[in-house]
């Protein structure tokens, strides 16, 4: 595949009046990678995507696709294509004409553009529906059509604005796998905006976690999950206990917390607390603990581990951890945000 290009954002900012939506971000997305822009609502991820797409003007900074500065080009001149959140299929056009739309705008004749559109419908397995109107399709089918429509211009970069949020949970998992397969097969860059950390972890080669218009941390899902840099990251990505020890803030994965009976001798730091809830989750057991210092914890124990301790609700426990599993978090002005990434 020849159409590969890196995307680079250089000090890109977006201001709406006096509010700053995106605050001087720098980002380099390698060609052919799956990148997720992740963050809570209002963090600037959608504005960033729309600036890359060319649907939002850039207040300052530059956007480069390959060697081209596309900052001031219209969407169609950027080698990008966008798939809209609610798909934005043209309700009066058949599936085939929806997919062929961009080619019609380039005055490519009917036979040729329909042949090309059929190829893309085959790619998303929707050939059987080419004469249907969008209203006659299910949500998942509409999404496939939207994908085919976005891909017909052979973009180097496909931009997806919360592509899975309109689907029910079952379909979301299926389409998630499908997106990943498509990206792998086409070998082009996908930039996918989402507020679900599970989605980002499952799909992305590169997760860019944003908060308040800035990039909080970027890296592979593993890097981010195992080495969260800030308290915000640890809390947003979920699955971590954030503990203040002296003047340091530590993040420890919930499944690395150790529960000890009060009589046991614990070396090193620990938090004393009372078990408030025990939830059986199948592959693990979640034990909620109200710490005496005010910190709430949720330790995740395997079934065997839990059975060995034999704790029950109301028990007093000492929560400890292996020092090697504790990551010191950097101070961040946004650390007070306590949005849990449970969504």
């Amino acid at each position, binding site marked *: 595949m020849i159409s590969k290009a890196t995307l680079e954002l250089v000090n890109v900012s977006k201001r709406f009046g006096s509010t700053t939506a995106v605050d001087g971000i720098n980002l380099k997305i390698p060609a052919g990678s799956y990148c997720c822009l992740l963050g809570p609502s209002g963090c600037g991820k959608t504005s960033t995507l729309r600036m890359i797409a060319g*649907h939002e003007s850039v207040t300052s900074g530059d956007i480069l696709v390959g060697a081209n500065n596309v900052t001031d080009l219209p969407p*169609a001149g950027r080698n990008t294509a966008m798939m809209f959140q609610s798909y934005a299929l043209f309700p009066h056009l058949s599936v085939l004409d929806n997919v062929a739309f961009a080619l*019609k705008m380039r005055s490519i004749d009917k036979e040729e553009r329909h042949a090309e559109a059929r190829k893309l419908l085959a790619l998303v397995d929707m050939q059987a529906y080419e004469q249907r109107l969008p209203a006659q399709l299910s949500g998942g089918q509409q999404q496939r059509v939207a994908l085919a429509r976005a891909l017909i211009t052979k973009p180097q970069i496909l931009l997806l604005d919360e592509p899975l949020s309109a689907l029910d949970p079952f379909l979301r998992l299926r389409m998630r796998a499908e997106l990943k397969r498509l990206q792998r097969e086409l070998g082009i860059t996908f930039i996918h905006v989402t507020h679900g950390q599970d989605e980002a972890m499952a799909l992305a080669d590169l997760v860019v976690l944003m908060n308040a218009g800035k990039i909080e941390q970027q890296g592979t899902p593993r890097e981010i999950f195992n080495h969260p840099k800030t308290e915000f990251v640890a809390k947003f990505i979920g699955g971590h206990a954030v503990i203040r020890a002296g003047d340091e803030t530590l993040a420890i994965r919930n499944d690395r917390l150790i529960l000890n009976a009060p009589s046991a001798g614990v070396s090193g730091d620990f938090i004393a607390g009372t078990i408030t809830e025990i939830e059986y989750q199948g592959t693990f057991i979640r034990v909620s603990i109200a710490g005496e210092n005010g910190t709430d914890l949720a330790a995740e124990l395997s079934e065997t581990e839990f059975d060995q301790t034999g704790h029950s609700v109301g028990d007093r426990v000492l929560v400890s951890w292996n020092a090697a599993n504790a990551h010191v978090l950097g101070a961040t002005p946004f650390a007070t945000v306590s949005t849990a990434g449970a969504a």
Partner: protein
Amino acid sequence: MTKDRNSFIAWLQAGPMMLVFVAFFLLPLVFVVIVSAWDYNEYEMLPALSFRGYTDTFEGCIAQLPDLCTILKTYAKTVKLCFLTWAITLTIGFTIAYFLAFHVRSKTWQIVLSLLCTIPFWTSNVIRMIAWVPLLGRNGLINQGLIDLGLIKVPMEWLLFSEFSVVLAFVHLFTFFMVVPIFNSMIRIDPKLVEAAYDAGATGFQTLINIIIPLAKPGIVIGSIFVITIVMGDFVTIGVMGGQQIASAGKIIETRLNALQFPAAAANAVILLGITIVIISALTRLVDIRKEL
């Protein structure tokens, strides 16, 4: 059981309007069609099957071909005025509706500006005409102004009591009937669709042709039906603004009625109805075909 109940309630809800329709629209229309086929003399109608109403109307027209007789000229003029009014109100109405739907962001302003369009309805036809005399008349503001500027030497006669003033009055009034239904269709268009078209490389004009117009089609058709039916049957505005010098289909019916020639009036009403139906069905067909392309 509940289904029967629901459908009964639905009928009950639709019932009053249906009764009004049948009693005051369908029934009179049937009478008109029946009466149009009656015979008549100078002072009364005779309930016997005859097509004098139709034949008298077009008396001598066939002999006169290819020249148009008065009655055909009148119909042609009515259709011409109707077409001009339709084309102008559609252009202006579509533009205003587009502005309101896509450029005015706030709901309040959309309502305020829509209400502004109703201002022509705040006065009666006669008052409006009187108001236009000092503006459009031979010694009116426009003529006087142009003479004073030295742009013309003789006052322009066609400003008032002319086809121009008739169309002006129609446009002035009925643009609103285009704006409302078209605006209504347009605000249902998801702005994301316009963005999606832009993303696909469509120019503003291509978006207009391929997205906005097809999706505003229901509004365009409804507005067109309003304007065409009203203008085709009008005789008051044409009379007043045309200085009683322009004949129209509506005027023919009025004249026949005044002469108590009910079958002839009815025959002309049926003809007018026929022409109007043909125009409107042709229009909807035209728009439908465009969609297929």
